[in-house]
């Protein structure tokens, strides 16, 4: 019929794990070919020839698949494909290879606090680990980054805080208002979102940077 065709190829399959024990994948549907189109996510693990279907299409929202603990293994590579099917046919996405240990994306750090220290004059930034990572420290190892800039500035300055939960910042302009954020990542994973912005006014008597 006019304008009707098999569905377009689903793409941009993206998978993330919050704690190396479960994970979710999302995809972007292609064109639906003008017809009602269904999507199914299929996966197989190393050494398996046949695909299994997604165990849970609901938990992680639309166009998604959630793998609970029972279906998640850090010991195998997953091959993942998404099929789009309508009356006129099925179109399969390119395969996506997923290693759960490399797709960890933690939630941002919590409780970011800023305090001015007088001697020597500097800014002390403190924070807490994201919820899940704190409880399982040793299994989920976390490193942090801090960024700051004065409200007037364009560029952020970013400092590596390693595994610490605090950082001292010396190079700041007196009497300026600064924005500070912290983010984190698990050893092989992706950086989290930045924490909400925190603000602080640097006192006038702070040593001027030359």
């Amino acid at each position: 019929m006019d304008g009707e065709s098999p569905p377009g190829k689903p793409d941009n399959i993206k998978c993330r794990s919050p704690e190396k024990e479960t994970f979710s994948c999302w995809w972007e549907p292609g064109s639906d070919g003008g017809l009602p189109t269904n999507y199914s996510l299929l996966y197989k693990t190393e050494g398996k020839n046949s695909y299994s279907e997604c165990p849970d299409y609901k938990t992680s929202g639309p166009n998604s698949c959630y793998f609970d603990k029972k279906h998640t293994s850090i010991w195998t590579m997953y091959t993942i494909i998404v099929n789009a099917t309508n009356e006129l046919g099925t179109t399969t996405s390119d395969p996506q290879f997923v290693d759960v240990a490399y797709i960890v994306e933690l939630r941002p750090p919590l409780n970011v606090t800023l305090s001015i220290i007088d001697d020597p004059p500097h800014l002390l930034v403190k924070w807490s680990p994201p919820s899940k990572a704190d409880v399982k420290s040793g299994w989920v190892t976390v490193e942090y980054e801090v960024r700051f800039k004065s409200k007037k500035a364009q560029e952020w300055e970013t400092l590596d805080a390693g595994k610490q939960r605090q950082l001292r910042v010396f190079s700041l302009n007196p009497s300026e208002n600064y924005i500070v954020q912290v983010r984190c990542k698990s050893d092989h994973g992706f950086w989290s979102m930045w924490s909400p912005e925190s603000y602080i006014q640097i006192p006038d008597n702070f040593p001027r940077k030359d």
Partner: protein
Amino acid sequence: PICPNGAVNCQISTSDLFDRAVKLSHYIHSLSSEMFNEFDEQYAQGRGFIMKSIDTCHTSSLNTPEDKEQAQQIHHDDLLNLVLRVLRSWNDPLGHIVTEVQGIREAPDTILWKAVEIEEQTKRLLEGMEKIVGRFHPGDLGNEVYSLWSGPPEKQITDENSRLYAFYHLLHCLRRDSHKIDNYLKLLKCTLMHGSNC
């Protein structure tokens, strides 16, 4: 380990598998040690349990290396399989520990949480070890069922002291065996993945 598209045999490297196994064994021993110390401080003080804990552990018959020379002399296949057997022999006792903790008067949630976490992570480590052993000897997993543990010493333990001691002894053995597994895996990782040049 991003696999190029169109890759046919895309798999996690054995080195990555070892890294994860060592990270997990380290984590499991740390938890086992914390759980033992917490229980010891809260329930064992002044009861002389440590003197009695010289009783053998249910895994003593497994003939594990007791020093560096022995651990380095044993063939790595045998040491890998030994780790597998020690892990398997803890499957039932860990289930018992989780149940038993809930029956101990005023046992803090932190002990229960650790017991559940150790049971779960030990299963995960066992899965990983079977994968690693499979890499060296495809198809030879020797999945014999392990019943080294004969269950709680006397089913009809009535008095609290004996019951606490039985639990103390199990945690003592878990701490010891998890330390062995962690040490052997770190040795195997350096030997097999880094040519003994860690």
